[in-house]
């Protein structure tokens, strides 16, 4: 029996910095990317704040991690989604989203893909396992 590549989804629903979940969750994604799995990441509800551009944690005195999102595509994490309604109800537009890498051929910046909740629900139903952070 051939090993089928398993679909693993990460959902990010908490906001960044108030707690460590988003940051430690990012560490899991980077590790898991090295394994043979079909990974997707969904930022939804307050999780969309994690991928807002322009975070500056210097005055707070804690480590920031926005820059790491810029390397997601380099880590071969390409399936990155943002829930449209979560984003819009929080006053964010696509232009507010971090850039997660650039297209190899065109060098165009790549942003997370904005999708509707129904699409996220459909993707969830296809997963082998889902980890929430």
């Amino acid at each position, binding site marked *: 029996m051939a090993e089928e590549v398993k679909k693993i989804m990460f959902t990010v*629903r908490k906001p960044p910095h108030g707690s460590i979940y988003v940051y430690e969750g990012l560490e899991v994604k980077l590790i898991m990317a090295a394994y043979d799995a079909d990974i997707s990441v969904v930022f939804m*509800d307050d999780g969309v704040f994690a991928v807002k551009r322009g975070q500056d944690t210097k005055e707070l005195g804690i480590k920031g991690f926005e820059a790491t999102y810029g390397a997601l595509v380099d880590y071969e994490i390409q399936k990155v989604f943002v829930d449209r309604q979560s984003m819009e109800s929080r006053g964010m537009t696509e232009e507010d989203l971090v850039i997660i890498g650039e297209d190899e051929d065109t060098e165009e910046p790549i942003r997370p893909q904005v999708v509707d*909740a129904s699409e996220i629900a459909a993707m*969830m139903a296809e997963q082998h396992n*889902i980890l*929430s952070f």
Partner: protein
Amino acid sequence: MLHTVNKSPFQNNALTDCSRYVQAGDVVLLLEDGVFAAQAGTTQSALLEKMMEQVTIYALSADLKARAIKALVAGVQVTDYAGFVELVEQHKIHSWL
């Protein structure tokens, strides 16, 4: 899909959030502080009634008893940890932490 919700709906929006992403036929298990949503006659009862048009709602008995919740929104199923395991056997799962 099995969706687990462990937050009080009076304090946290996890159940409302979850309701946006469920598909018809999905199952939602209320546990820990999530079971407060199951109580009949509260300002949050309507949310559960609305969700039940699409999904089946379970509430964990150990958590209901610990919180003295006796009158449940009509249609909510009570289950125990063994029933929780059976739901996990039958469905893939997402925790709405």
